[in-house]
């Protein structure tokens, strides 16, 4: 069936997508594909790459030192996520229970730290945690300790920094889920004989699960990549995969190896997203925004 004029109309819509199409292929797909190819190449003596095909980079990853780094990164991400859930979930949940007036206020109060540069907030922690910094001085004045804690440049400091940076995402995620909760369902459960805890577990938890799960994803994945927190608060003591990649790229100039590390990291995160989608059957990430 000839439909010349209608085709022209559909053509206009297609034209609109062309900038996106081109940009995506050129600057998103292209680089990712190149990274993959790069990981199979070999580093030249001083600069650049040699066009050979090799698995060596991936084999190097299997060396204990790098495997250990992967494990440390995953472990840190896990600890961070658990803490973020413990702190952020109750906050988001309780926030949703406030009256409308207070909800707007708390929302506004959360916005300011959220929009403040993460570097500024981390700097604040440096002030608190450094030797003879605020925390030390406070504890010493209270007589709890005698000598500075030397908290800065330690693993706990990095954890604090990660949790602090990522908690807002969890809060907003849980809040947007909990806000839509129909409280009359909880009341109905109580009315039918459930205790507070039972009502929570059977009703509230189930209904805020989407928010919780997307918050977990929003925490776990970035925490694999926020190497600058480890850099600032952990110094050279805490080395994550991100740090290694940066080092390999900028200092050792071993791009293929860095690419291989990045590929492995990408695969790991993709697997996690895949399982997350399977569990929640969520097709779009629009809810995350």
């Amino acid at each position, binding site marked *: 069936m000839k*439909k010349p*004029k209608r085709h022209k109309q559909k053509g206009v819509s297609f034209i609109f997508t062309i900038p996106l199409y081109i940009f995506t292929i050129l600057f998103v797909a292209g680089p990712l594909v190149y990274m993959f190819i790069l990981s199979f190449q070999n580093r030249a003596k001083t600069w650049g790459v040699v066009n050979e095909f090799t698995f060596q980079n991936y084999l190097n990853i299997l060396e204990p030192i790098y495997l250990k780094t992967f494990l440390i990164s995953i472990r840190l991400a896990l600890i961070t996520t658990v803490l973020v859930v413990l702190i952020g979930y109750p906050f988001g949940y309780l926030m949703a229970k406030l009256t409308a007036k207070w909800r707007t206020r708390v929302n506004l109060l959360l916005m300011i730290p959220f929009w403040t540069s993460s570097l500024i907030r981390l700097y604040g922690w440096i002030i608190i945690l450094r030797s003879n910094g605020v925390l030390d001085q406070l504890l010493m004045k209270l007589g709890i300790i005698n000598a500075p804690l030397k908290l800065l440049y330690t693993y706990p400091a990095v954890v604090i920094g990660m949790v602090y940076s990522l908690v807002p995402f969890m809060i907003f995620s849980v809040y947007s889920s909990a806000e839509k909760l129909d409280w009359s369902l909880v009341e109905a459960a109580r009315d039918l004989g459930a205790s507070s805890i039972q009502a929570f577990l059977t009703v509230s938890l189930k209904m805020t699960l989407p928010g919780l799960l997307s918050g977990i994803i929003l925490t776990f994945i970035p925490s694999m990549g926020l190497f600058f927190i480890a850099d600032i608060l952990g110094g050279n003591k805490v080395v994550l995969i991100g740090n290694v990649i940066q080092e390999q790229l900028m200092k050792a100039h071993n791009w293929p190896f860095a690419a291989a590390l990045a590929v492995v990291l990408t695969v790991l995160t993709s697997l996690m997203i895949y399982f997350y989608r399977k569990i929640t059957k969520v097709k779009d990430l629009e809810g995350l925004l």
Partner: protein
Amino acid sequence: MEDIILQLEQIKKSFDDTQVLDSIDLSIKSGEFITLLGSSGCGKTTTLRIIAGLEAPDSGRVILEGKDVTNEVPNKRNVNTVFQNYALFPHMSVESNIGYSLRLKRAGKSEIKKAVTKALETVQLTGFEKRMPGELSGGQRQRVAIARAIVNNPKVLLLDEPLGALDLQLRRQLQIELKRLQKRLGITFVYITHDQEEALNMSDRIVVMHNGRFEQIGTPTQIYDTPKTSYVAKFVGSANILTGIVKGIENNIVYIETKDGIATVLHKDKPLNIGQKATLAIRSEQVNLCPTDQETAALSSETFIRGTVKEKSFSAGMLRISVALSNGTEFTASRHGIDSNLVPDDEVIISWLPGDSILVDLEAPYEKA
């Protein structure tokens, strides 16, 4: 012969696997008010959208003023639509909304202003130019939607259940206004509704649609007094339908045999054979009921059918009694008044005069006109 302004030829349309329109043929005369009447899902909105150009038919042609516009996009046809939810552009004022089509044609500023003022006058909303759609009531928005559609002087105006969202009072008032407007402007109106009262009040012709086909096309009188199919009879005026076997024809009266008795109906021009299945329709106002213990000698030409009273109810100023026949068919009789001696489970005789009933389903269900 009057001017035919719009023709639909053998229009077929399917969505996914459902056939929504099945070979539609229609000729619409210039200046007439024609209504597509049917319940939801019958295909009336799809028909309208095909005329407007918002959908393309799978096969068939749309001919406007002699020109084949089947594949033309909506912005090139001289047809305008009043949408069901009005679709007034929320970010534009009333005068911007109305003037939009003229701005697209790059008409001059003063020309646009004149046309907009005239259009607002026509729908009795003078002075509303600067208002925003969000500030208007339902009835006002509907009028702006009409003004916006007529300012173009379209040859055909399509109205998709424009009064559906309004309350009864407003609906009745606007029905009268719309009819007057149409007569005054002389534009051909193609109107969609599921409300039979509306259709009967406003239209020059009605097209009753069912399952993607035209059941009957005719004037309101034709549709009401002489329905051609049982669907039309039931949909317009709520008739009772009865099917049986032709037993005999005498003096132009057809005697139809059913398990519960004999029904009579006047013979129409189509030939009938003894033993053939026949269906008739009779309006509830014309059904008589009398208790069996008061059997009087009925005229032999009157219908005589036994049934059992099921329910009595009062609705819209009439007393309605529903009677069940042995095969489960329900007959409804209605009359003025609030009560009668009949109670549920009473045995009754249903009767009527043959001139009050009518044979239906005599030809193929869909019409060409």
